[in-house]
């Protein structure tokens, strides 16, 4: 296979990694904020959080991508394609991160939260000193799953014209008419990324384990 192919796939991989990193970071930040809304004692915030999650979790990512990529320019919001796609993915996966965080928080016995409140800790202090340290561990593996889903999901960006790994594989296929080789190669790369992230999640999980 010509070296140009590897070059092209390499550039695709770089875009995939960038998009994954950006979208995951965005999803984490937004997802945690959403989860805080959903468990806060303020009813409008809870409602807003729930509405967000319902909306974004129930629309296929591909549909969202098409809506954002072709819809935003319609209403006068012009962003670079890559940024639009990364943002869409962050918004989509934030809903899943929110639910992971929320169910992690539920693993902390309610009585401990009441004890913290009864001692005079504020909502944020209670989160920071009682809830988060004890729920972090149960969130690691599900967040690892979100990461894998997000990584593989970036391949949908090819459908709206981002030349990331899958996109490049398609281009290479068109050019050299050798679909098996290029897609086999990309498969290996995706699997390498997801397997590695699984291993890393396991490490992190052991790191944040609670000594008892």
């Amino acid at each position: 296979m010509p070296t140009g192919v590897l070059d092209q796939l390499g550039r695709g991989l770089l875009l995939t990694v960038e998009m994954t990193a950006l979208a995951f970071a965005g999803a984490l930040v937004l997802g945690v904020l959403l989860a805080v809304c959903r468990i806060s004692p303020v009813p409008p915030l809870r409602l807003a959080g729930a509405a967000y999650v319902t909306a974004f979790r129930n629309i296929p990512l591909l549909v969202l991508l098409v809506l954002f990529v072709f819809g935003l320019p319609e209403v006068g919001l012009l962003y670079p394609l890559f940024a639009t796609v990364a943002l869409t993915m962050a918004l989509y996966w934030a809903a899943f991160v929110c639910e992971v965080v929320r169910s992690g928080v539920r693993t902390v016995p309610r009585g401990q939260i009441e004890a913290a409140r009864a001692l005079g800790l504020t909502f944020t202090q209670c989160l920071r000193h009682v809830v988060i340290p004890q729920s972090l561990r149960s969130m690691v593996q599900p967040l690892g799953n979100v990461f894998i889903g997000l990584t593989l999901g970036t391949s949908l960006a090819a459908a709206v014209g981002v030349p990331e790994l899958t996109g490049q594989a398609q281009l290479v296929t068109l050019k050299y008419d050798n679909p098996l080789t290029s897609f086999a190669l990309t498969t290996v790369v995706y699997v390498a990324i997801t397997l590695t992230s699984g291993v890393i999640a396991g490490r992190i999980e052991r790191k944040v384990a609670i000594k008892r």
Partner: protein
Amino acid sequence: MASGPGSAARVDALLQLRRVNKHYGQSHVLRDVDLDVHAGEVVVLLGASGSGKSTLCRCVNRLETIDSGEIVLDGTPIPAEGRELARLRAQVGMVFQSFNLFGHRTVLDNITLAPVRVRGLPREQAEARALELLDRVGLADKAAAHPAQLSGGQQQRVAIARTLAMDPRLILFDEPTSALDPEMIGEVLEVMTELAAEGMTMLVVTHEMGFARRAADRVAFMDQGRILETAPPDVFFDRPGTDRARDFLARILRH
């Protein structure tokens, strides 16, 4: 007016509940509850399961909201939200049936968390105080242990020390010994009896009639969300004023 023994009774109670009502959905859980707890007083709240004793305690530090009426601590109505509420809660300790120690923190860190974070006490000072309190509840050697390594009785004594570390004006106990094996009940009641003797203001929900007789200044009897009678323990146990209380005592004392 001259001050004298007579005027002490006129001092407003530290904790006052006035016509407090609370519903859970359709069920009316607290009905026009009036209750005073004076500074230094120990009030034991008795009543059958489901009569609303826990709900009353939880309303006092506003883990639950009330529908009507007023709860006043030292002249100040309990605030609804925010920092004011947190400040009030810091003055009202609560000891739960299920201990509720923070599972990820050592015994020492359980006790110092609130003094450091809520009261802003320097850590060394908070730790010194925590060790003192641990000694007082007989657990000086457990400072570095994690809650899961302790027996129920030990956990509950730590929970009491954790509450004391905030120097509360009033401590609510909601069946503090009900989750304990029989052989551990004594050690917890002993700590509570000492606290009572030292003049701590306490509102105690319990089924330990011995403790009520020994430590209570007054007993309040609750039935279906109402406080039916309030009396000194000897009066209540020997000559209960209502049939409901008589039935309750007969049932409790039979086993």
